[in-house]
């Protein structure tokens, strides 16, 4: 707890707040897209064959993205993951419930997009890899390296030049994740803010 308070106090010293209300036009999307880093979160859910058993996953995650070149962006994510596994109901096994951490690194690229004034609709593809550490109440701790590929559908909403975040992004995610004993699928809803 002391660590957290110290971190929060340190960050407070750098936080500024000033009301600015300038009559400016929105920023043209093509001006900002190539150079804007993003920060945001995602609520996800899915299924993975952890330990050979179908396991439901629910995750809360934070992510950052940084443009590399062209329409390619690098992404880094941290997720806190809840897991739950139900065995054969006839045998009445105890449900396995657990939790863990997962980190993903990857790349995403625009596959198609459509500009509508300050709104840009898009479909992006992504590739990457990661590592999860999950513990549950029955089988213990699992270290799960993975690789993933996915699609993201969403929109960018571009703001005024005086806006601290130049863009707001909302997206749906569908991702296939491969681990040592098979593959699973996850989906999610995310929101990101450009700097």
């Amino acid at each position, binding site marked *: *707890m002391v*660590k*957290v308070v110290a*971190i*929060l106090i340190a*960050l*407070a010293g*750098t*936080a*500024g*707040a*000033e*009301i*600015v*209300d300038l*009559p400016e036009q*929105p920023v043209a999307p093509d001006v900002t897209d190539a150079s804007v*880093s993003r*920060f*945001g*979160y995602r*609520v996800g859910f899915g299924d993975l064959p952890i330990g050979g058993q179908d396991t439901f996953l*629910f995750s*809360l995650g*934070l992510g*950052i993205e940084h443009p590399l070149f062209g329409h390619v962006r690098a992404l880094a994510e*941290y997720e*806190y993951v*809840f897991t739950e596994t139900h065995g054969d109901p006839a045998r*009445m096994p*105890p*449900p396995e*419930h*657990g*939790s863990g*951490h997962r980190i993903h690194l990857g790349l995403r690229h625009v596959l198609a997009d459509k500009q509508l004034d*300050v709104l840009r609709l898009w479909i992006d593809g992504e590739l990457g890899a990661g590592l999860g550490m999950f*513990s*549950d*109440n*029955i*089988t*213990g*701790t699992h270290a799960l390296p993975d690789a993933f590929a996915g699609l993201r559908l969403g929109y960018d*909403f571009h*703001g*005024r030049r*005086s*806006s*601290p*975040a*130049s*863009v*707001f992004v909302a997206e749906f995610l569908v991702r296939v994740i491969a681990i040592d004993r098979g593959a699973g699928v996850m989906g999610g809803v995310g*929101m990101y*803010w*450009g*700097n």
Partner: protein
Amino acid sequence: MSCVSSEVRHVWVSLALVLASAQAGADGHYVPVASHSISLGFSGHGTHIDGASETGGGPTLELALGVGRWQPFVEGMISTAGVGSWTMPAVDDRVDGWMGRGGLGLRWIARQFRPDPSGAIELYLQAIAGVEKFWWHDGTRLTRPDVGVGFGTQIRVFPFHGFTTRIDVRLLFTPTDRESAWVSCRGTCTAATNDGSAAGFMTGMQFGW
């Protein structure tokens, strides 16, 4: 707090790294939060008690101060609560009751997007600590502390007294009864509880002025 040790520390460290990343890109002029505000809402939660899932939902009240991008707040919640046993998942084995929760927290506006001068869509991060009390219908009582971290989106409308709509998501860590976990799981079941904490979550929606 020794009762919520290693797993919570991992989350703190991860959050600190993310905060540092977020702060690095958080330039610009932010419209500050209101100096005083009150919020009403509804939240649902899912935690564990003695290895069994506990869920419920109910109304919330929050009183907050505002300093720049920071909002210290106090909050209260009255919620339904229900917990079942894995040995008898039938409805008649479920124990219901009520939960009351009070807490303190600190919220930070990490990002602010202003599509026009009248409002903003904001990303916030927060840390909380509180106390939960359960009143079960079978007469049992339980009081336990919790700590948590969270994030969410809030939409503020500046001309309308800063009216705020907030969607809130939190990780919640509560102490685990180790002895009960042994009994209900047997064998190697203590892996998830050997750090003395159990993870849950809380999510809700609030309207504030």
